[in-house]
């Protein structure tokens, strides 16, 4: 099968940088209950990884491990060549439902600036250089004119851009985005995905994206990390977009459609039952 365009780019692995993520016999538990186990995988630096799996499979939990917020129950984890550490400035993070949780009380500019200075105690003003970095990050995501607005005044697409600006303002080497496309219309989904592709090319950053619907991300994904039957797996994206694997993964029949723009996967012809993946409602999509 043809690999997406992003595959042809040189990845950081070629440049001799440590992998973005290494799991070695890792098991993760919450309140004594194992979420997933037997994690053995290596995510090369510079890849764009779709993190997929059914609800409750532990996608957000994986991010918490990478962020150093959740110690593993067993095994060894390496993030950018070192054990995970809370407050690692090399990681930019956009949580799930992020923008909905942010209130009326803060300007976009201040929100982005907090990622630079918010962990510091004491009364210190932001420096001119820090202000410049905030402006540059907002400009990079196409939100330069939104700095003085409040998050609550923006559209969903604009909010997601500001959230990404916050994640990249400190020159992150690894971006973790949890459902960044949820609640976005098609055009905004497309623009956010294009932005991720550009960031990946310009900064050689590794990007891990949790998504229910892989379709809009397929143009930029190089790899997939999928949580299946209680274990994480990692493969090049081309090997994941297979009907039998996706059908198993989503627990519902999935068909893969090849188009000139790349692959699409859709729900099969069987009638919907239970709670389907978001793709269920949109069997066709123009790229």
């Amino acid at each position, binding site marked *: 099968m043809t690999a997406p365009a992003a595959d042809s780019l040189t990845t950081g692995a070629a440049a001799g940088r440590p992998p973005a993520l290494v799991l070695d016999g890792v098991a993760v538990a919450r309140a004594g209950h194992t979420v997933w186990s037997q994690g053995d995988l290596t995510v090369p630096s510079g890849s764009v990884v779709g993190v997929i799996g059914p609800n409750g499979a532990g996608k957000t939990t994986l991010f918490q491990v990478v962020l150093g917020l959740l110690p593993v129950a067993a095994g060894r984890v390496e993030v950018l060549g070192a054990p995970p550490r*809370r407050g690692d400035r090399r990681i930019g993070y956009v*949580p799930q439902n992020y923008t909905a949780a942010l209130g009326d*009380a803060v300007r976009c500019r201040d929100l982005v600036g907090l990622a630079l*200075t*918010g962990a510091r105690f*004491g009364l210190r003003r932001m420096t001119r250089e820090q202000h410049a970095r905030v402006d540059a990050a907002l400009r990079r995501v196409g939100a330069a004119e939104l700095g003085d607005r409040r998050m609550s005044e923006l559209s969903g697409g604009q909010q997601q851009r500001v959230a990404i600006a916050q994640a990249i303002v400190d020159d992150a080497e690894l971006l973790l985005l949890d459902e960044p496309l949820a609640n976005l219309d098609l055009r905004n989904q497309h623009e956010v995905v294009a932005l991720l592709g550009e960031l990946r090319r310009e900064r050689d950053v590794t990007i891990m994206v949790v998504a229910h619907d892989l379709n809009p991300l397929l143009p930029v994904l190089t790899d997939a990390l999928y949580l299946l039957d209680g274990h994480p797996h990692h493969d090049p994206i081309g090997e994941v977009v297979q009907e039998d694997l996706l059908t198993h993964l989503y627990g519902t029949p999935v068909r893969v459609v090849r188009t000139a723009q790349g692959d699409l996967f859709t729900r099969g012809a069987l009638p919907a039952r239970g709670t389907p993946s978001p793709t269920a409602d949109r069997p066709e999509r123009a790229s």
Partner: protein
Amino acid sequence: MTRPAAIAVQPDWLEILQAPFMRNAFLGGSLVALAAGLLGFFVVTRQNAFAAHALAHIGFPGATGALLLGLPVTLGLAVFCVGGGLLIGLSGARVADREITTGTVLAAATGLGVLFASLAGATAGATTSVLFGNLLAISSGQLRLFAVFTALVVLVLAWIARPLAFASVDPAVAEARGVPVRALGVGFVVLLALTITMAVQVVGTLLLFALVVTPAATALRLTARPGRVAAIAVTLALASVWLGLVLSAVLPLPPSAFVVGIAVLAWAVVLLVTGRGRRRRWRATPFVDAHHVPRATAT
């Protein structure tokens, strides 16, 4: 202007304003307004308004218990507010959990307060001054304590303002960036408890919102620049206290009513002026004090 005879203008109001108890009232009220105005931004953004209100109630048995034991009321208030604050702060990160705990602790505290007041044989007047505050009765001893509390609140807040703001508006990312979100939450609630200990004595348990929440909520309607929010909130709180005291000298009515009235009036005017064009996402005061309405409190 016609007015019922009972609240006619006091012709000697200028002299009243110069009396020593008025000096104490101005100083004490200003200290409280400063601390409350600064904390208000965080109370609103952290959606802690309910906790703030509950802390005031939790202070109630502290105050009546102090009456029972013959101890200073401020001490009883401080012990119960800070203790209750720690309990709320440690009880869980989720707002929903916090509200259940807060509500339960609030009910227990109010029950204890009534019990203590009854055991102490507290007069209606003493109970009223806890419930509605008595700015005009602030002693020099209380004033010194207020100065210490306010200095503590301002200094600690200056130290933690930035990470606390991060943890308040954006807890998930703040935690990932290494901000000690839980510890800051506990620290904040202790500062809040100290401020409420003072505010209860100015505007009382029942009217505390007007100083701790309303000025900051008003400021946030006008701007989202953090420095300006703090400045406007403190200014509004100070103006409410000062104007309230002057009015209470002119008219023989308790200052609490005027302080609250002015703060609420400013909020209402700003709400009217800025009402359109902004969606309100934060839920500042969702519960509308329902548990008070049916009960006639000691007046």
